Every structure is written in C-alpha cells, then in structure tokens.
C-alpha cells in the first residue's frame, strides 16, 4: 500500500491534472484538490451541505458507500441522477483509491 497516491482530475475546462496526495493526513478529495491550487467552490467546507464540490467518478474504484446525507444533498442539488456522482468532500483518500480518476462537476466553479 502506497503512502502517497495519485489522483487524476479533469477540470471544468477539460484539462487533466495528476495530483499526489499523502494518505496519512486524513484528507478528503475536496481538500486534496484545494491543496493543489485547483479551483473548487466547496462552499460549506466539507459538511455535505452544498454540493459545490460535486465530482463524477470516471473509473471504478472501491469507493466508500454514500452516507444518507451525501445522497440527499446530491438529490437536492439535482445531481443524483448523473451516474457516478459523488461529493468530493465525503471521499476520504485511502491507499485503495490510488489511480482514481474524477471529473469536476457542475456547480464547482462560478
């Protein structure tokens, strides 16, 4: 298991970025994106209460299941019907997620 994992992110303009994230700091994906100076709105700061850190997962990884809060928030923001939608603030980055690919979703920019 790697202590540092690679995450691939496609931004709203379609540009691809690879970020390296340590797994021993308890970061979630939203925080990792911010830490790499990429634009992500994430209004509520990680409470699953705004959906402005919405991402679409592009490759299958053993993602943790959605909490009821996350599912309800995505639903409220009309994003639940988009397949593989998640709130990046609810995805804790663990060694199993090495190689994860996501696209920033609508609502994460202005």
């Amino acid at each position, binding site marked *: 298991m790697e202590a540092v994992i690679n995450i691939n992110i496609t931004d709203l303009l379609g540009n691809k970025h690879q970020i390296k994230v340590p797994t021993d700091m308890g970061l979630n994906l939203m925080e990792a994106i911010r830490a790499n100076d990429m634009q992500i*709105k994430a*209004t509520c700061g990680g409470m699953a209460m*705004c959906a*402005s850190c919405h991402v679409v997962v592009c490759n299958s990884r053993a993602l943790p299941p959605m909490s009821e809060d996350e599912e*309800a*928030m995505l639903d*409220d*923001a*009309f994003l639940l019907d988009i397949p593989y939608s998640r709130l990046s603030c609810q995805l804790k980055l663990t060694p199993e997620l090495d190689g994860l690919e996501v696209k920033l979703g609508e609502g994460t920019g202005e």
Partner: protein
Amino acid sequence: MIETDILIIGAGPCGLFTVFQAGLVQLHCHLIDSLPTAGGQLTEIYPKKPIYDIPGFPIVMAGDLVKNLTKQAEPFKPGYTLGERAEHIEKMEDGRWKLTTNKGTEHLAPVIAIAAGLGCFEPRKPEIPNLIDFEDKGVDYIVKDPEKYRDKNVVISGGGDSALDWTIFLADVAKSVTLIHRRTSFRGHLDSVKKVNDLAANGKIKLVLNSEVTGINGVGKLENLEITNFDNDEITKVSADYFIPLFGLSPKLGPLKHWNLNLHKESIKVNPQDYSTNIPGIYAIGDINDYPGKLRLILCGFHEAALMVQSAHKYIYPDKNLVLKYTTVSGVKAF
C-alpha cells in the same frame, strides 16, 4: 436615502462584528444582505452545526454565534437592508459612495466594507423548461410573507428543512398544501419530519413522495402543475395558485464582479495591512478577500474587521488621531 459611515455588504459573522468594532471608534454602520435574515452561511447553511474554533467558546452552534454577534452589535444601532442584493456603486462628487440594491434602495457612505463571504445566495432552481416564465406569477423561491398564501392552493417541493418548515407553517394558512419530494425519506430534523407525517396522516396536507414537478401550465399566471411519479412514470395534474420549490441556495459572486475590483478567482485581492482593495474607500474582509497566507476562518475575519475599521477611520477622518481604547477600561458607549 440611507446615510452611514461604513456600508457593510454581507450580514454574516464578519459583517456583524464590523459593526461592533466600528462602534468602538464612533463610526455608524449599515448592513446589506441578499438573504432575508442576518448570519450569512451560518444561518443559511449550517445553523445547527457546532463550531469549535471561536476563541473562548469550546463549542458554539452557528445559529447561536449569530445571535450573540447580533446582540454584541446592537448597542451601535446598525441599520439593515435585508433581502436585497448590492447591485451598483457610484462615486459621488463629495467623495462618498452611492450604493443601489436590486430593489432600488439607495445608500450613501464614505466607506464600503465588502464582507460578502462567497457572494450572494441565490435559489437553486429545478430544471423545468418554462419555470422562469412563471417567476413572480405563482412561482416563489423564498417565502417572504406567508400571508400571501392565505386561502390559496400551494405546492411545495423539496426534502430539506425549509421545505418541511414551510409545509408545517403554511398548513394552517393556505387552503391546501401539497409537499412533493423526490425521495421517500426526508433529511430535515426528526421532529419536523414527524410533524409533516402527522399532518399528512390527519389529512391537513397532501404528501406526494418519489415524485417531482416536471411541468408548469397557465395563462399569464400559474394554474396547474404536472407531477411525475418515478415508480410508474405517470403524470398527474394538480391545480395550484403557488409553487414554491425549496432546494436550498447556492452562492454567486454576483454584481461585485463588475465593480472594477482586483479579483483573483472568486476572491477580492486586498492589501494585508488594512484589507483595502484597489479602489480607495472600499475594503474587503472575511472569506471574500485574498492575500498571501489567507485562511478562511471566522476568527481571521474578526481580526480583519478590527484592523479594517482603524484604516477606515483614518480614511474618513484623515486629521483625527485614533487612540486604541480597551473595552475593559472604557466600556461600550452605545449610540
């Protein structure tokens, strides 16, 4: 025309504390906020969530912090323009700023302090093709005056606290209330969920689950709604005088974008010495500003408010020397 010393855009924690700091140096403040109540994100997004990093409060609920900040500002008699968005600014001949809201309310002040957090909150709108054609013609995104719905047929959609709370409240006011929710469970407070279920069981409201509004019809104003049930894709028509979609609010930088401020991404660049912007007389504090080392924390916003007020005083009264007074020594001299 509302006249004051510091016009604060944004009645969140940072804006509210500015009133207190300004009051200590005898400056009057007026707050403008697009939301109908003060508190910003704390009131709108997480009123019942605990905050642990306010100095001196091991734990405080966001809503309680707002209540305390409002009380702390009270001796200095702040004015409030709530439910209106700061839209346009204009420099007057005497050097003061005239700020006009989207409702046309005019304000005049030598200093503007932008404490707008992440911008102004705007309602999240469901994707119904002709929804905007019915705005203010039966479709409302915010309940401002519940009396408007007296003896009317009202349809509310949403599954969060505001949908539940207004359903409960309007059950006693409106002729009929129908609550439509896309899921079968609600994510609001348990007691609100119970109340809504009880009201439905007693026939006081109609609960339509696993469904959403997919069509709006009417001539000149809302007449009926088409509701699609996800189980069987069946469409039912429901007559309604009002449709209130309540899917929360999301912030947008909004009109500030066009004020020729020096912007970096979604933030306003400031001088970290006094949080002044590139435009003399305009400051930016709290989550909306950006400078090297910026941390988006409430406590940092408080610090910025205190420093900004000193600079604003110098800007308004260049010939007066300000001596720092301690509240413990001088107390709080109310206006």
